[in-house]
């Protein structure tokens, strides 16, 4: 005796959020049943394991049928097959596009290609996220990437409208797309301590200030590509480290301003030239794609690590960078104030975010 067929279809599609999560997490039906038993669902309604299995199977089938629609969320709203209330639709989409931080950390900045997809089983083993879930997340990244690639207008807004995501999630996707497009290196050992949210923040800063879109908001790829003209202009900043007088002047201005405000002043004074050289060098090299990729590595190696070894506090860092940026305005021979501000504004906030005490 065996159950040959078992279906339950509601006029309003019945979806249990817990089961949906298990499905998204890539649990098999049997594992999902176990997880539900462990969660104590059985006690809720005098149910048996058979009932739970049947329910889980039904729901899994429903999700599988829905998956096609979830991949183009706009369709979910005007399809006729499933009657789902709008706020439930929003929940389904939001969860479908949600991702695991450990997973995204592995993929961030990598090319969203077939090659990467082949490595997913390694990533799955490393992160503990099931392969099925890895695939879903990877495909989501890729799908969003492909769609927004061809669109004009602001990146975050495009993602939000096309995939009907919340503002937060849309921003995260914008970061992922931005990283994938510029292929920023994030996997190096020195960068391991950084979370996805650190990077997402930095991506937001870069998108808002350094891309073409920061100047002109009707160009294709405006938020994905860095502003080439700006990168060219950055070369002009070199004067700050090549001109010996300027460098000394800058140093004394900063040190005077910092006097009495921090214990780390001796270290700051000692390291000033090094640090300044590091930051300006990063700026001048950004015209090379290769150096763009190493942007975060460079920030860590050239600035964050020296500071950390000197045990600067976050407050020290803040103080130093603020005065470092502002003092440049007082240098009378330095003419590139606008570029300097656009550059340092981003650098400052990225470093704050990336500097973990």
């Amino acid at each position, binding site marked *: *005796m065996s159950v*040959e067929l078992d279906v339950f*279809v509601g006029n309003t599609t019945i979806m249990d959020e817990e089961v949906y999560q298990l499905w998204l997490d890539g649990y098999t039906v049997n594992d999902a049943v176990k997880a539900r038993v462990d969660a104590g669902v059985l006690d809720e309604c005098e149910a048996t394991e058979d009932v739970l299995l049947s329910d889980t199977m039904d729901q899994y089938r429903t999700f599988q049928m829905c998956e096609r629609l979830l991949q183009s969320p706009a369709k979910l709203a*005007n399809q006729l097959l499933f009657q789902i209330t709008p706020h439930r639709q929003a929940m389904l989409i939001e969860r479908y596009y949600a991702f695991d931080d450990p997973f995204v950390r592995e993929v961030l900045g990598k090319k969203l290609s077939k090659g990467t997809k082949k490595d997913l089983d390694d990533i799955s083993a490393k992160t503990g996220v099931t392969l099925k879930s890895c695939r879903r997340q990877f495909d989501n990244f890729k799908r969003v990437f492909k769609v927004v690639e061809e669109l004009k207008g602001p990146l975050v807004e495009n993602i939000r409208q096309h995939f009907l995501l919340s503002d937060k999630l849309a921003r995260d996707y914008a970061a992922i797309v931005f990283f994938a497009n510029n292929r920023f290196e994030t996997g190096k050992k020195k960068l391991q301590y950084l979370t996805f949210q650190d990077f997402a923040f930095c991506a937001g800063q870069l998108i808002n200030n350094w891309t073409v879109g920061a100047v002109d908001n009707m160009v294709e790829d405006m938020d994905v590509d860095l502003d080439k003209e700006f990168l060219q202009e950055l070369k002009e900043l070199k004067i700050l480290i090549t001109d010996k007088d300027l460098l000394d002047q800058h140093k004394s201005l900063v040190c005077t301003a910092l006097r009495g405000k921090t214990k780390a002043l001796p270290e700051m004074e000692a390291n000033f030239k090094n640090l300044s050289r590091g930051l300006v060098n990063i700026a001048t090299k950004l015209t090379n794609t290769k150096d763009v990729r190493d942007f975060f590595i460079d920030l860590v190696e050239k600035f964050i690590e020296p500071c950390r070894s000197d045990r600067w506090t976050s407050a020290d860092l803040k103080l130093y960078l603020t005065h470092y940026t502002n003092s440049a305005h007082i240098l009378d021979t330095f003419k590139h104030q606008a570029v300097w501000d656009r550059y340092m504004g981003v650098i400052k906030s990225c470093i704050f975010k990336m500097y973990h005490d």
Partner: protein
Amino acid sequence: MPGKLKAKIVAGRHLPVMDRASDLTDAFVEVKFGNTTFKTDVYPKSLNPQWNSEWFKFEVDDEDLQDEPLQITVLDHDTYSANDAIGKVYIDIDPLLCTEAASVISGWFPIYDTIHGIRGEINVLVKVELFNDLNRFRQSSCGVKFFCTTSIPRGYRAAMVHGFVEELVVNEDPEYQWIDRIRTPRASNEARQRLISLMSGELQRKIGLKVLEMGGNAVVGYLQCFDLEGESGLVVRAIGTACTLDKISSGSFSNTHTHPNTAPPSNACNSPSKDGKESPLAHGCRSTHNSPVHSACSSQRLSQNFSVSVPTLIFTGMGSGGSAGKEAGPLKTLLRQQTQTALEQREFPFFTLTSFPPAFLVHVGGVVSARSVKLLDRIHNPDEPETRDAWWEEIRQEIKSHAKALGCHAVIGYSENTSICEEVCILSASGTAAILNPRYMREGCLDMGSTDHRFDDPSPPSCGFCHIPYDELNMPFPAQLTYCYNCRRQKVPDVLFTTIDLPTEAAVTGKGCLIQARLCRLKKRAQGEVNATAISNLLPFMEYELHTQLMNKLKLRSMNALFGLHIQISVGENMLLGLASATGVYLTALPAPGGIQVAGKTPSELNEQHVLTIQKRINDTIAKNKELYQITPPELTEEGVGSPIPEPRHRSRLFRSHSESSDEVSELDLSHGKKDAFVLEIDDTDAVEDIHSLLTDASPPTGFYSCNTETMPGIYNWTTAVQMFTSVRVLRLSNANLSNQSLNKIFTDLCENLLKSFYFKLRSMIPCCLCHLNFNVAVPEEELIQVSVTAVAMTFDKDQAQERPAERFITKGGSETEDQLQFSLELCADTSSTNSQTSSKISGVQENALVSSRAASVDYGSFADRCSTWLELLRLKAHTIRRGSVKTSRRTQSLAHSVSSLEHCSPLTEGRSRSLRSSRSFGGSSVTMVKMTPLSFLPGTRIIKYLGIINMFFIRETTSLREEGGVSGFLHSFIAEVFAMVRAHVAALGGNAVVSYSMKDCVLMENPNKNQAQCLINVSGDAVVCVRETDPEPVAQMVNSGQTCAADGTS
């Protein structure tokens, strides 16, 4: 009345990719009606084509308008090879032919393909212009309204109920034509879908003609079925109740819970005695039907053309003994005479309605049913479906005579169905014998004369229908009669079975519950006549056993009446399945059921122990159930006063199929182990099975109730949350050598597990009631058992669950209102006091045991009975008056309760509507939510317009079963697709809900080895527009929103 049909193809969306090279589609549309076809231009390279076509105009006969569907085919243009079909949409334009229904069909329809399912959507506009009718001898019946709803539709008033209409049409099944061997499955499926659509159109038109002939303007309780007879053809048949309906002007009706006031005409015909002769059959049939088992067995007969027919039983309360009195006799006879004349002209005084306007239903006799086993032969001439007609005619005659035997002139809650396996077909019909108030059925009764007082039944509406319609001295079966516990004036049976819904005005104690009897019987594989005979031999036993199970389960729940009884017997190659579902309730008017007694045959020590444990388990279950369903009968209070009312001892025997009908056992004293007092021999293995099956039925988990009727007695405060669902389960019996017992167990578990699944899935809706649980069993193949269920889960407000809304008391008319009101309030209040008196009742029973009244000693007893009843009644009244003041406060309290709960729910509804509104901006969705329910109403809303009947038939086939997720995946998506198509049609008509929805057929055939499966589904319902009860000016608003929706879609 010729007319002009106009159709416009606006746009498509989400089309499938038909050209792999470009990942796009070059779509165009063919619009076909009758033999005329139009085409749109090809819209190249798009998955969202905007055809925006001209208006295609078809000039057609209204006969065709009724029969034919508008057929829309979406194709992919291909320059070099044949165009590929993407899919089709069939649109039934019947709703447009009624002036009161929809005026335009406009919206997005799923494009359906029988192989691929839904493939995108198409936006269509359809209109009809009808010209005036000049032809008197017309073949069409445009304008006759059809309703699936089995009550007078809300917003209408029944000016007259004309009665039964039936029709059937037959044809060859395209699936079995020779051409099917060479055409594709798709072509074959489409031919079938189209044919059935045509046939049901024709059927509806013919029924409409009959209604017009009778002078009616509507069919209520329209029930259409398909018989797929395989080789021998395809039968589409329908029954319904012809009525003349008047629309009540909007605003005058507002309550969804009580029926719209179909106010009885104030003046009825003054000359009812046209021909007052009494039917000779009324008493004559009694002897042949005195015992269900005997009648069923003895009246089997073989007819000539290889068909066997078995008229079955009259079901009514079974019991024995009983008292009689002549008190109500003359009146009753008169009543019968009068009403018979009103109904006599009709061939079949049948009504498919299950609930009636107040005062329409006078008395209910009991369930009547008939079954007949037939051998199918090829239908040679489709134009003369006489054989099938004759078969049904035969069965209906049987039913009619059963009803007469019960002293009734009408059958209500009438339905017919079939079960087919190979060439054997079981035809079944069942209904409830009843006496109806003839006022509604007489010609011209509205216009003249004064009220005929003789028909104003003196009994109060809360119990009147329970009073026996038959003559007490000539009872059609042994039943135990007592005076009505509500009015004390007339006799009632101890148990009442019916196929109708619980009348709204009925007085009920506690809550109801779903009661099911399930049965499997193995049968030898056989062919032809032998097979038919074997089946017909089994039928009466099955019927009897199902009935016994029902009775026992009813007693176990301490209830005394069944409503909505539906018995289905399904035939397979090597087994028969029987499933009886009903809703058990405790009718206040009927006596309290006695317990169930178990006894051993041999008084050995060991046995005694066993008996006692079982007895204890049964008693415990009864006690538990009483508490669960809040059954606290008021009678107990009276007995506490020590009244000499003759205590009816209806401790029932535990009925068993094999036990000889034992003598009436009036009382049992287990402790003494009287040898002749046994009820059940528990050393019999069958009996043990019986008891186990009795006790294994799990009661629903806390917070859940279930019933198969429209509403649940005892629950009145529904919220607007509803969830309609369909569930199908198929079990494969791997073990070939199963016994009847183990089969029964498997079948019972299957049904119980299904229920458990529902409870679990719907747990978020608690407190919740599953209403209209409609089970359907089938044996699709050898070793397969299929159960499909459609039902609706509705949430109610828990705080108020035990209180009836105050308005319900007010509706109870009559001089006794005041007393009743206080009395019934007392019921809910005095739980503790009744409990304390239970023990006194039991002792009373034992005292009375010696005076056991047999049927023979009736006359003297009954006189005494009557006297004591009057005394008791007086005492009772005094009693209530004394308590009056206390109770009034209780009443105000309950009112306060209801007010607070109203406040309670208002913020909730607001929140809901807000979320809906916010969602509109979100994603710009243009899909209207369409609610579906098998009930005739949606709680918390009011139906403002009926848009027409939805009657759809779909076939789905696959040759890639595994890829679609196996049979479960295949059926899951098919059912979802069917729902989607129903919703789309309703939305296109401008509606937002389907009421009285039902899935009549779900025929699944699978062949996993070949990776194939096919499924046929037939659904029906009434498309409606409903608005929240609180919305003041709904009409204009709704229509507007409907149109803006459509406009959204097109833009």
